[in-house]
């Protein structure tokens, strides 16, 4: 079944076609959401919300772009909204607050704690990365997540974000520079370089 045929059936509220659409695109939605939320449960919540929204408003999809582009846009918007809504509920982990153990963080096992090369544990690396990504501007963060979590090309990112390819290049360059700055500053502070 082609994408067009699938979408026609979904627009006709065909449940089987919708199930197929979910199966084909759930990892795309989930991976993008986890890039923003860094939490499996929250990413699954957003994935559900995205597909419910898809079911209820598929009529508004005009087919001018690929369904994946439309889903990426929905996921980015809903993840940002989810973060805004839950800012007070979730503990936004600050690197400075070392003792603040948030159970919502990805449970990455510290298998290499004894490795002398690693001054930080995996959990701390996870926190550091989350902090650094969250500190990026919304546009830098979106372009970085689409590029690194979903391996989207500059052209695809430009289509999702509705900007030019050169803008994507510039956003990604600044995003990486800022990430590097935040992370290196953190390592220098913690390891007393």
């Amino acid at each position, binding site marked *: 079944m082609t994408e067009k045929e699938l979408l026609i059936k979904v627009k006709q509220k065909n449940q089987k076609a919708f199930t197929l659409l979910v199966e084909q695109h759930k990892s795309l939605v989930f991976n993008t959401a*986890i890039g923003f939320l860094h939490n499996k449960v929250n990413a699954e919540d957003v994935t559900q919300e995205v597909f419910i929204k898809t079911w209820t408003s598929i009529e508004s999809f005009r087919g001018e772009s690929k369904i994946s582009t439309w889903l990426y846009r929905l996921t980015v918007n809903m993840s940002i909204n989810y973060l805004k809504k839950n800012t007070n509920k979730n503990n936004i982990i600050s690197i400075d607050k070392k003792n603040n153990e948030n159970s919502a963080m990805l449970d990455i096992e510290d298998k290499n704690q004894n490795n002398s090369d690693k001054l930080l544990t995996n959990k701390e690396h996870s926190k550091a990365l989350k902090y650094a990504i969250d500190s990026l501007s919304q546009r830098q963060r979106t372009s970085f997540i689409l590029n690194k979590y979903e391996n989207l090309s500059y052209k695809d990112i430009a289509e999702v974000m509705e900007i030019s390819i050169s803008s994507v290049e510039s956003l990604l360059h600044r995003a990486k520079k800022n990430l590097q700055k935040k992370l290196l500053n953190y390592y220098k502070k913690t390891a007393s370089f």
Partner: protein
Amino acid sequence: MNDCTKIENNLIFFYYKELNKEKMEQINVHLLNCSKCEILYNQLANSLSVIDIEKNTDIDLLLTNKIIEQVLLVEKNKKGKNNSVVFKKLIQTTLTVAAISVGIFFGVFIGGFYESANIANSNFEQTEVFYFNDLEQEAFLSEIINNE
């Protein structure tokens, strides 16, 4: 800007292999000779590798089922809402028609009641009838007639 600062500014691009061959080689050599930069690079690489761990997070096998269940629930609620809207509109129309009918009925009933009550209670009876062209009132005209 010393060598270390220059290297630090490009570590993330070195990690993502986004530098030209010459710069890649230059940083590689520097990292082999500078333990401080090497540690920083390893830290950065470890933090950035978390992205790959997050990317490979297993999705709940029942996620599709959960989504379909949610969608069915949304559809059910939508239908229930539509039915209640139709029912509400039907009730509203019925009540409006009933209110207008009752109003008309009472209007006609009360009007009819007062009309018959007025007729029954009326004592007025006309005893004298005055005519404008009564001959007695026309003295001048009668004199003329008589003189003739």
